[in-house]
């Protein structure tokens, strides 16, 4: 690390910060881009179709349809940028960014590998170092702000379908956030800290993974993550069979691409939150103190798996009805996570 910093004429801390910034920014973005391909091929696989396989480099190399990604990107850039006449132009422009920026920010606090010490300096593999005081409150705060992108997009396009989508989405986010927070609270309680580094350190063997200790908390959190990312069992903001395309009905070209991409970045961040909170983050099963590279690989593997679960479930389950969603949120998820919290509190009180 120090050698590398010297090459760039930077202090090791500074060089490390730059490296981390690039990783924390590029990794979710690249993964999200690949996920759009995985989504289409995965959907095709589940529905017994072939999926996108026509785009090819020089009409020759199809690479399992991966070239479709580049083709879509170029197409989005070259499309005409339409804004409807009665839209609120400023907000219409701003909305995709308001959806995209919080989505990208969420990853900052998540440790994607084991911290290591070199020449007396500790290097942490998360953008925000441990002990920053924000801890897991940060992704929750960022996640709760994400709804503004959808709300603004829906309201500014001045379309009744869009507004319906936006209102559904805001109602859904607010109701599911409570159950989610209480589920996470139980983890803070048993861990005795709320810093993601502490939470991961506490899950040092497979039996100590929070998914074992907080199984019902995990169910609640997992379900709430679908609601937070607006993915299919809960994609009421979009609801293409009822309200055309919901909040992004009026969007086209690169603005639409940004909205779509932010959904996939949300999936990546949600998967890494699930992994950090319930599946031991970078811990490798049955290996004590794994090597740094191994820990990063383990984290990446788990995240990719959960990204796939998101897609898997999308193409397996039908969409709920809105009253079913509210029923599930308030009358199943919230009591379940409260019960989880109380049971853990009781056992902690009993056996310290």
């Amino acid at each position: 690390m120090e050698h590398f910093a010297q090459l760039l004429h930077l202090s090791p801390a500074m060089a490390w910060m730059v490296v981390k910034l690039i990783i924390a920014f590029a990794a979710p973005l690249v993964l999200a881009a690949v996920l759009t391909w995985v989504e289409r091929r995965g959907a095709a696989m589940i529905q017994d179709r072939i999926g996108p396989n026509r785009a090819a480099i020089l009409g020759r190399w199809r690479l399992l349809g991966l070239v479709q990604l580049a083709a879509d990107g170029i197409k989005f850039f070259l499309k005409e940028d339409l804004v409807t006449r009665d839209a609120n132009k400023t907000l219409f422009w701003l909305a995709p960014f308001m959806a995209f920026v919080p989505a990208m920010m969420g990853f900052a606090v998540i440790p994607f590998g084991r911290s290591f010490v070199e020449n007396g300096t500790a290097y942490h593999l998360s953008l925000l170092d441990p002990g920053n005081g924000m801890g897991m409150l940060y992704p929750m705060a960022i996640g709760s702000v994400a709804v503004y992108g959808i709300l603004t997009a829906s309201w500014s396009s001045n379309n009744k379908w869009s507004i319906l989508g936006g209102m559904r989405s805001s109602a859904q986010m607010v109701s599911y956030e409570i159950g989610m927070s209480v589920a996470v609270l139980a983890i803070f309680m048993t861990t005795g800290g709320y810093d993601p580094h502490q939470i991961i350190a506490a899950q040092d063997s497979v039996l100590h993974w929070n998914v074992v200790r907080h199984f019902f908390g995990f169910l609640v959190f997992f379900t709430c993550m679908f609601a937070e990312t607006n993915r299919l069992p809960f994609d009421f903001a979009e609801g293409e069979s009822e309200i055309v395309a919901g909040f992004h009905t009026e969007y086209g070209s690169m603005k639409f691409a940004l909205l779509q991409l932010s959904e996939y970045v949300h999936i990546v961040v949600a998967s890494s939150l699930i992994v950090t909170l319930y599946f031991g983050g970078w811990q490798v099963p049955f290996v004590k103190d794994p090597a740094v590279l191994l820990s990063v690989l383990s984290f990446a593997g788990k995240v990719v798996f959960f990204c796939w679960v998101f897609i898997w479930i999308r193409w397996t389950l039908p969409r709920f009805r809105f009253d079913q969603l509210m029923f599930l949120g308030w009358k199943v998820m919230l009591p379940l996570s409260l019960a989880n919290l109380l049971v853990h509190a009781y056992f902690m009180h009993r056996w310290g």
Partner: protein
Amino acid sequence: MFAIFALITLFGALSVAFQKNLVVAGLCMVLTFFGVAGLYLLLSNPVAAALQIIVYSGAIVVLVLFVIMLLSAHEEEPAGRTMPIQRWGSAVVALALAAGAVRVVLTSGFMQAMKPLKIQGPMNLNLVGVELFRGHLVAFEVAGLLLLATMIGAVALVKKDL
């Protein structure tokens, strides 16, 4: 940094007051809350900053915007008849309140004893919890009771047949 966050806060607050469009005004309010959260961060209190964003930006303003959209009252309603006395009266009251607040801050003992504060690391949830349950237990419990009463009241008002 302080100037940036203070300007964001002030700009947001002024826009809320002068913006005719209710939804845009609501979004400006979110901007203000972000500015305030930034100020909390500068005071090395990230917990307050996070809670500010979770509670105010993430929940309360979302609900406010929800209601605005539901009523589709996008524009401010013009008053039936203008009452200049109301405007001047409110200006005087606001100025008096502001002057009082500034005076209280300037004459407080804290201001006299102000020196570069020694900060022992950022505030964290553990410290907040200890402070809450040790120093302010009664106030905390009373606030909880008050919220419970409000919640029961809201349910009782809305539910037709209990």
